[in-house]
């Protein structure tokens, strides 16, 4: 179905976090995202969410954004896949 969600999300994280090409390939479901990157302030998180909306063509409700969503790569991917499936 949305088999490219995974690779699109890795690309977005590469861009937003300024990772080297290929570095995000090593992300597993339990790879921590924002808990382990305290320099990401609310503006950076907001930019990330807008970027996800634009590139995955989904709309993220602000009520859906909480610490859990951005805790790990797996939680963010599951959220994005569910959003695309229902879009």
């Amino acid at each position, binding site marked *: 179905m949305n088999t490219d969600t995974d690779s699109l999300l890795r690309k977005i994280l590469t861009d937003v976090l300024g990772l080297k090409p290929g570095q995000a390939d090593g992300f597993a479901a339990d790879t921590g995202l924002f808990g382990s990157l305290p320099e990401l302030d609310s503006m950076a998180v907001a930019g990330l969410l807008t970027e996800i909306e634009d590139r995955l063509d989904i709309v993220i409700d*602000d009520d859906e954004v909480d610490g859990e969503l951005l805790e790990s790569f797996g939680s963010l991917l599951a959220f994005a896949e569910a959003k695309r499936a229902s879009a």
Partner: protein
Amino acid sequence: MTPRAWPCPLAVGTAEAHALTFDDFRRCRLLIVPALFDEANRMRRFTVEVMRRLDGAGIDCVLPDLPGTNESLQPLERQTPDLWREAMAAAAKHFRASHVLGIRGGALVTPPGLPTWHYAPVKGGSQLRTMLRARILSSREAGRSESQEDLLEQGLTHGIELAGHRLGPEFIRQFQALAPAEATVIDQDVLGGSGLWLRAEPGEDRAQADALAAILTIGIKS
């Protein structure tokens, strides 16, 4: 690189404004309209790096302040996108620009009438949404619950402070519906890296600055 003053039109009268220039009285002269708000900070160094390369390629460049931003003494909350576009048109005239580049949200207020490039342009509504969301997230951390609809309504009625920027009702009204005018678009893809406005901190990227300067030089000199 020389700081220069120029007469900037305001809603009423004019005021002296600041611009960063590489000016050697050359034929090709590029006016650069900077990225907006928090993106302005994250893109400033990259913008100046591109200017240094264009200077080396024989192109004069000028990077004026938008009224109410950077070194400007004007209150931001009295500005509107229309006033910004008029200010940039005045800067183009004062510095005798031959070409224009708008960066990100700067593409929304490039002046008409000159050959124009837009680098990674963004719609006003999209940038506004990101700023509203940032405010909602930081308010939530402080234990306050806000919604985009309520904040937008508040902005349109009384003005609103977003990410430290105090914006007036008329600014919000114009900005939320604003899309870049016709121009040659330079997408981020062709620069071979990820956009520096996405990063949490200001950064730099030599290869991207080389690529953008090369694209502009070829376009301006052809």
